């Protein structure tokens, strides 16, 4: 098994569109890394440069410490699962899974048959070898695509939004399944998605991409809890954002003047006068009616809108000046109703200052 290393990857398309603007990452052997970002952020282009379908304008790619920047796709040992699976419609499932080994030419028929059986076993679809792709359901096609990509024992597994075309229930099932198989095989994996929930639940590390660059790279909980930029905070999960400038700094904390309110929050390196944003996750707020101790930053408002999310309830609290706070509480903890006056508060340790 082997790692992947991207250094300074830049891709400019003919016509001048700069899709990727200098991306660096070292992916360790066996690691599951997710590239997540809105559509058009360059994540798919980055993945396609790893596979060799796009040649980077600048930068180098190495797989298993070998520079493959100029190698064509068929000379790199990567296995890719495509968004619509791309199972060859004129071949059976067996022929599809065997394809990579057959074109390689170094396997005997017996080896190929054994490996195909092993792969179908791995994806828990042992009985479908003689069917054609159109006889399988979406979830089954997904598993076969994975089996086909893994069959020639690639150095890396590349997943290009493979769950996007599945319905919600199946998607959640496949998230678990995909992760199980990846860990069982122990293969270095790069996963591309625009779905932040998938990124958070599946990866060892995730790289949030925006406008051709990595905004932040790190383990899911770190990126969620400690976002470094306003974009990351806003893109992953739900965030209440307060834009303003720092008025005073003290001892790891700072006070941010947002015009109508001022908020005390945890601070990193920002200095006085700097324009910043304060991020508060909706579940960090306390509601006064629950009898909890009021935090340092308190807001009075009216419940304007309420929706039940199953395990939790989301309230939109209007605090005047056109500001609406999103507050999430566990279900069954003192329900509020629309129109009710409420006092919302949050401690300074649950507020974080990020780059605006």
């Amino acid at each position, binding site marked *: 098994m082997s790692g992947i290393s991207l250094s300074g990857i830049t891709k400019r398309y003919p016509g001048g569109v700069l899709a990727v603007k200098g991306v660096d990452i070292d992916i360790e052997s066996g690691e599951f890394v997710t590239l997540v970002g809105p559509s058009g952020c360059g994540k798919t282009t980055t993945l*396609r440069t790893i596979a060799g379908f796009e040649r980077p304008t600048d930068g180098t790619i190495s797989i298993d410490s070998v520079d493959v920047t100029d190698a064509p796709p*068929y000379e790199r040992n990567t296995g890719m699962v495509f968004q*619509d699976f791309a199972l060859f419609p*004129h071949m059976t499932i067996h022929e599809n899974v065997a394809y990579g080994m057959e*074109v390689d030419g170094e396997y005997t028929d017996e080896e190929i048959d054994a490996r195909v059986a092993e792969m179908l076993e791995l994806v828990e679809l042992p009985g479908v070898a003689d069917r054609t792709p159109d006889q399988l359901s979406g979830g089954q096609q997904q598993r076969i695509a994975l089996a086909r990509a893994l069959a*020639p024992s690639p150095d890396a597994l590349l997943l290009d939004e493979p769950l996007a075309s599945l319905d919600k229930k199946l998607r959640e099932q496949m998230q678990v399944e995909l992760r199980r198989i990846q860990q069982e095989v122990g293969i270095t994996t790069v996963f591309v998605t625009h779905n932040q929930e998938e990124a958070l639940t599946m990866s060892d590390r995730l790289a949030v991409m925006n406008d051709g660059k990595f905004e932040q790279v790190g383990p899911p909980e770190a990126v969620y809890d400690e976002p470094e930029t306003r974009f990351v905070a806003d893109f992953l999960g739900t965030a209440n954002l307060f834009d303003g400038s720092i008025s005073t700094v003290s001892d790891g904390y700072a006070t941010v003047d947002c015009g109508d309110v001022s908020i005390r929050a945890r601070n990193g390196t920002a200095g006085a006068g700097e324009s910043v944003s304060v991020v508060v996750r909706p579940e960090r707020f306390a509601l006064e009616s629950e009898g909890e101790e009021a935090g340092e930053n308190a807001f009075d408002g009216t419940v304007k809108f309420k929706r039940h999310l199953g395990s939790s309830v989301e309230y939109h609290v209007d605090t005047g000046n056109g500001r609406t706070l999103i507050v999430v509480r566990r279900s069954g903890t003192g329900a509020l109703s629309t129109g009710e006056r409420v006092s919302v508060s949050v401690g300074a340790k649950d507020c974080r200052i990020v780059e605006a």
Partner: protein
Amino acid sequence: MATNSSTDGDESGRAGVRANAKWYAVSYPMFWLVAVFLVPLAMLVVFSFYVNIPGGSYRPGFTLENYARFLSVSFSAGWPPIEGNLYLSQTWLTIELALVTAFASLALGYPIAYYLARMNRPWLRSLLLITIISSLWVTYVIRAYAWQVILASGGILSSTGVRLGLLAEPQSFYPGYWGLVIGMVYVFLPFMILTLYSSIRNIDGELLEASKNLGAGPVKTFRRVTLPLSKNGIVSGLALVFILALGAYVMPRLLGSSAERTLPVLIEAQIMSEQNYPFGAAMSIGLVLVVLAFLWVMVRFTNMTTASLGGSEVAEPDGGRPDSAAYKSASGVGSSFRNGVGSLASAIGVTRVAASAGNGIESVILRIDARTRERILWVGSRVYVAAAMTFIAAPLLIIIAVSFTPEQFLTFPPGGFSTQWYVEFFTDSSWVIALINSLGIAGAAALLSTTIGGTLAFALDRYGYRWGTIFGTFGILPILVPPVIVGVAFLVFFLELGVAGSRTSIIVAHGIFYAPFPFILISQGLDELDRTYEEAAMNLGASPLGTIRTITLPLLQANVVSGALFAFILSLNEYIIAWLLSLFLVDTIPIQIFNSLRYGYSPTIAAASVVFIALTVVVMVAIDRLSGGIWE
């Protein structure tokens, strides 16, 4: 993302070979389409200035005499001044006939196309489409012959008329103007129906439901939604039929009298009978100019392209409304432009007439309740479609019936059953040789067409060329040139090379003339081919050539084979090019039938026709099966 890089021929991920391979790839089709197709056409221009020596030879030189003879106008002989010039008045007749054919086909064809597109019984639709399409490819010679049998004095129409007491005595409806118009509409109607059909089919059914939901009745929905959205189909259909009718040789020759000798008939006579090559060439240039003028007007005043004429028509829901100011500026240019513009203006006119007629009909039927109204419209259209389908299918069915006659002459109804004429056909060496020649030429021409069209389609799909659009136009161009001109041009070319009058010459001419069909079909296949399949193969380690062999070609198989079968069936049924290039030395079935028609209507001709029709239908059904309903 894949599409972003598709113009970049050097992209490492493309299933192409190497960057310089792109020039090798395109040089093969260009050799045929430029060196072997445009050169003969250019030679035709040169020949049109040569000096004719009476007695069948010519010498290089420069004279305007041929054009003077073609274009001379005499103002003394009365008005219009073209009256005194046989060639100009027949040119006008050719254009008039083409216009009449185009508009008659539109009027007859639109309801059928509409019904076909909207009916919801798939099996019946495929049956009707197969019928229409099969009749489309049966050689004009057999179809003209069918109408001779129907229209002749003592033919089916006249004897039925007498029996019913409608006619006092047997009467012949051919040769003559109206017999010819019937024959022309009969052969070109399928082109109109298919063009309109694909255009109406492309209209999203939800748009019609939306219109009905907003309160518009069937007539209003048709007038306000369907008709405007099928306007491009109407214009393409008119253009296609007009161009095909301009170049028609067999129908005017076999169904027209001497007064209906159209330009292609006159050209053939100059070449084959008078052997006045320079004058034949000059008239050919005249015909080409009429076609070019028409195309120019089409492209200039509508959003049509030559490619959409060639068959890759896609209905575009908006645009294409020619502005009326443009008509005025063009009105003084010349008569041929005026005709072209006129045909477009009338296309718009037809829309208006149809609209006002629709208004009238709607106000009448509004008094009836909605359910009855829909029923009446539906039943009425069914009766109409049944009648039109009879018009399309009956002539060939009659040929099939009379081929089994036990008598020595053509009789209908046959009055018995005998296969003697089939025995005659398969034992007469001249028919058998003609059949073998036809099959051999068609097979070889199909291979040539497919290699030309296929490599061109592949090269254009894989590599970016600065002149890509022009290369693509070359791929369509041959089919836009009237076949009689292709024939004359190749004759001149092969005479110079000394290989005229051979099977090879016919194979080369057919191979190039029909290359657009495989080109269009394979291009469509490549367009629809999901690029990810190739990427998946390369990701799994397949080399570019391996990818083409194991993935691309198998996925394109249906397109390649149907392209080849199309070229085969067209070559098999082609008459005028084969006839001009045969120099009386090569016989094919269409040539043999045509020649036999001079000596009367032996039932062997009917038997030969049936064998040929059967062959055609079998191949057409095979294409349909292969492509999984290509007609949709």
